[in-house]
């Protein structure tokens, strides 16, 4: 299929699904859900097609290793808002393709996981699809303005999704999450406009901007704006506090999508807009951010140790694992950047599965407090084993995706011989012990031990529920056992960014 057309179709399709859902009758839940499911299934197929096509194209380009311009495939450009020279400018490199693949998998699984939503199902699925459209849009955009536009489209529906369909202190959580992310957006917008005017090129094109040598004084203030702005979404310390409350209150599919994909927009932006466009700024600020994200990694892990609510545990573990994404980036080495990207994918799959399973367990036990559960292995072996496996993925067991990503992050951070990097690397590596502590503690008190009387009648996952779990497990194992092709792809995309960083 024609590449640029395919790219456009992929982000437009969720909008179309949302539009098609509008005329359906409120009460016809089944039809609404089937439309969403089928639509996103088609989109999943399209993204897989795109990935396969992309692998074919990317193998032919061998000059990438020396280039310092990201090689976007399937580029397509048309003027949109000529006064400010804003263009509809799309194209993908390996990072975007893999992120889109992740998005497609997670949303497909998320829709199955939200099959039980009864309350205002129509609005729920419309918003969910709009959100996904925004996510795809960010990944296909080369133009910074459209990138930002899509970013906002992705972030804002979250407010309604949590505020209306959430649980617990949902209004508070939704408000907090949205306000903090919007504050981050304000930083980003300031940074992007700064780039636009400072470059003197009158363009928002990423690749053109990347070739501009911005003055040091400009980068000194613009880089932290962009990095922190996106970093808020990547849960950078101390701006991570929206994450535990937000994830705990959000409904299952929203948690899956938010932790699985949306948080990756943060890392993606830090890399693509922050480090790629302002390499000198990155060098100036890296030690500060290195310390912050090292705190992230350790602090998230220690925070998770004492939590009692399953969703809070997962949220803090996300803080720790997303910290590893940025930790890889701040190492400023080739392997580190690659490790960060791999960790985005790995963490996306892993947390999506985590939240998916938590939703299913909660649907049965009606509690998320770890100490009130126990022995679930006896009545729901399928869900319990899946839970153990995803826990093991979280603590970086080889043969699951977490190890591949973490190994790259750690090798990358060790490749930077500066003393501060050494110290932070050692601390981050030691965090794997803390991770093991909270993962095993959670798993043990959830699936092992004697079963409580009231849980004796619970039933294991239904065939429909098994589908997303199996898909995500398959991906976790696939990436963990045969990481070669993903690494090859990511290599191609990271080389230009790294070369630009070292210019």
């Amino acid at each position, binding site marked *: 299929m024609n590449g640029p057309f395919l790219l456009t179709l992929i982000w437009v399709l969720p909008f179309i699904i949302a539009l098609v859902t509008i005329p359906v009758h409120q009460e016809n839940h089944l039809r609404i859900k089937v439309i969403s499911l089928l639509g996103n299934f088609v989109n999943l197929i399209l993204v897989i097609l795109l990935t396969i096509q992309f692998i074919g194209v990317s193998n032919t380009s061998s000059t990438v290793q020396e280039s310092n311009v990201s090689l976007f495939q399937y580029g397509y450009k048309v003027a949109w808002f000529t006064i400010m020279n804003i263009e509809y400018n799309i194209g993908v490199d390996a990072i975007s393709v893999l992120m889109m693949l992740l998005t497609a998998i997670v949303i497909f699984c998320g829709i199955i996981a939200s099959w039980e939503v009864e309350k205002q199902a129509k609005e729920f699925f419309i918003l969910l699809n709009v959100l996904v459209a925004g996510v795809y849009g960010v990944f296909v955009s080369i133009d910074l303005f459209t990138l930002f536009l899509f970013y906002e489209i992705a972030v804002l529906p979250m407010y309604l999704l949590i505020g209306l369909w959430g649980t617990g202190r949902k209004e508070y959580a939704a408000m*907090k999450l949205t*306000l*903090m992310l919007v504050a981050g957006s304000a930083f980003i917008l300031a940074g992007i406009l700064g780039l636009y005017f400072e470059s003197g090129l009158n363009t928002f094109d990423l690749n053109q901007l990347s070739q501009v040598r911005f003055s040091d004084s400009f980068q000194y203030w613009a880089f932290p704006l962009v990095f922190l702005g996106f970093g808020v979404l990547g849960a950078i*310390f*101390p*701006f*991570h*506090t*929206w994450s*535990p409350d937000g994830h705990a209150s959000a409904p299952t599919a929203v948690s899956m999508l938010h932790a699985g994909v949306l948080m990756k927009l943060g890392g993606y932006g830090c890399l693509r807009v922050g480090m790629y466009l302002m390499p000198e700024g990155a060098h100036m600020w890296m030690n500060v951010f290195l310390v912050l994200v090292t705190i992230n990694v350790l*602090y998230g892990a*220690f*925070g998770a*140790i*004492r*939590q009692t609510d399953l969703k809070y545990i997962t949220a803090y573990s996300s803080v720790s694992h997303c910290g590893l994404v940025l930790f890889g980036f701040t190492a400023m080495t*080739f*392997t580190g950047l*690659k490790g960060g990207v791999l960790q985005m994918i790995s963490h996306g799959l892993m947390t999506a599965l985590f939240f998916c399973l938590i939703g299913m367990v909660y649907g049965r036990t009606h509690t998320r407090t770890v100490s009130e559960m126990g*022995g679930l*292995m*006896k009545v729901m072996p399928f869900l319990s084993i899946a839970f153990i496996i995803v826990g*093991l993925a979280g*603590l970086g*067991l*080889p*043969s699951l995706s977490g*190890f*591949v990503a973490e*190994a*790259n992050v*750690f*090798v*990358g951070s*060790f*490749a930077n*011989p500066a003393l501060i990097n050494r110290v932070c*690397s*050692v601390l981050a*590596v*030691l965090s*794997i*012990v803390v991770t*093991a*502590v909270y993962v*095993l*503690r959670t798993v*043990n008190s959830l*699936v*092992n*031990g*004697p*079963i409580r009387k009231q849980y004796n009648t619970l039933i294991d996952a239904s065939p429909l529920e098994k589908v997303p779990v199996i898909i995500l497990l398959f991906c976790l194992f696939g990436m963990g056992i045969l*990481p*070669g092709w993903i*690494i090859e792809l990511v*290599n191609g995309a990271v080389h230009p960014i790294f070369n630009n960083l070292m210019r």
Partner: protein
Amino acid sequence: MADWLFTHSYLILAFPLLSFLVIGLFLQRVSPEKSARFALGTAFFSMLFGVAVSGAYYVKVLAQPLLYPERTLICFDVAWLNFTPILTANMGIYLDPISVMMILVITIISFLVTCYSIGYMKGDSGFGRFFALLSLFSFSMLGLVVSSNILQMFVFWELVGVSSYTLIGFWYEKPSAVAAAKKAFIITRFADAFFLLGILAVSFYVGSFDFQKLNSIETAALLNQSFQFGSFTINLLTLSTLLIFAGGWGKSAMFPLHVWLPDAMEGPTPVSSIIHSATMVVAGVYLTARMFPLFSQSLTTLWLIQCVGAFTALFAAVIAVTQRDIKRILAFSTLSQLGYMLFSLGAAQVIYPDVPGSGLNPLAYSASMYHVFTHAFFKCMLFLGAGAIIHAVHDNDILAMGGLKALMPKTYWSLLTACLAIGGIFPFSGFWSKDAILLASLQSGHYFTFMVGLFTGGLTAFYMFRFFFLIFHGKARSDLHNVHEDPWMTVPIMLLTIPTIGAGLLEQFFVSQVTLPGLQEISNFSHPSWLPVLASLTGLTGISLAWFFYGKGRLEKAESFKRDFRSLYNVVYNKFYIDEVYLFITRKIIFAGIGSPVKWIDRHIVDGAMNLCGEILQLGGRLVRFLQNGQLQFYLGITIIGFVSLLFLGK
């Protein structure tokens, strides 16, 4: 034929993996019986293949020293994880004397343990699942020993860890089993973090994970550089080898990381048997041997290995003397024997003044590997025998047993050989390997370690025969009914007597072949003829003392002895309270000291700051709201004031 075997040597691993997948994914639900038979079949083929490959290795490599001076063979090596264009981790199969030896040990013991488990686990609700996990365990350990590079070893190292986690916690409804599994995993994981740091450090400076590269002389020279840290000088070679050794420290449960091993007895007995003989705990010793050429370049590392090993050997033996749980005695004896293996490796460093050669004693290395080999068989049998006894008596307390000789004659005679072997009595296998270890430490001039080893040998004979007499001799101290021997269980036990008795014949083979090519024979050492006599006498003294205290199943003498030394006894019986120290560290320091404050700080300070920002904004909003109050007069007033002030300012 041999080449075909080498290119298909991955089949040794493929069989257990296949067994795990097939049983785990569907066969266990279809039929537990078929699962067991399937596991037994794959274990058999894996063993067959392991033996065939070992034979081929002997014929093709060991018998042709001119063609293969290094005695190594890389059967295949495929790129798996590529970090940078130059740094790639492979997955490969690396054959050398020690990996081939381990392949033999693991495949044979896996087969026997699988066979035994069919009898032991009969009627368990997780019968099928057990065999899947057992196969996974063998697969992981086989992958570990054939690793061609250190990252591959780390991968399988972790898989061994997780398989042991699932097997120790096999009875997941039992809280103590679950806790033991968690403890084992977390403590070994703690050590693994340092191992990973060591791997990262070495790979950064050397630019490779491959053992062949890491063990080369150039690597040692490259790493032999010092860093100044304030007033500390750190040698990179020492630091990185110590970090890597830390991994083995945890896995081989050396003091003070030994606490997980006795608790790991909560798993089913066949699991304990395989953990203690062929998989898991010997991994640490194996890692040390695998990296020995590099480790041996750092005298500090060797010295530490020796100290840790010798101390643990003695420490664990002392604890074993007081324990009452049949499996815990064996667990502490394993710790003690692992100590032997490690201090032997550490004792390779020759401190005897006028010895020519490389300064490293090749016998120490061979003796350690030889002890790994002999120990695997007799320890496996001891555990299987203990399992058979528990199965028959339904109790773990040796003070509640006694008089089982008549009821379980086959187990009695088999275990007698194992106890004699571990006690170091001529001509059983343990005698030869322990003798070699003692000789090596004597040759290298480590007299103190030699004395510790000798004394521990006597202690070992004592506590093993305490164990033996209390179980089998005298009158039954509890009501024993329906005691019988299941052929699924007795046949593997009896088969294990063959290596237990006969492995002594292999001494010359190990000394000449299982060694490192870089180490030269130290020729001006003779084998002092008094050493075997002395060692045997020590062992016999231990046995006699055991007979004196516990022979004929009497307990009175031991009880009065215990009363006289009550406080000392309590300290030893409670394992020197090391577990309590750990509880203090986890509960009071990690949970209460770090975890809770972090939780509190996050909620109240970090999040509080964010909420404060929100409050300030709301305050601003309220101030603005005061202006925007909807009263026309107020607006008009403001307008007039503004207009007037503009007029004045305009001038």
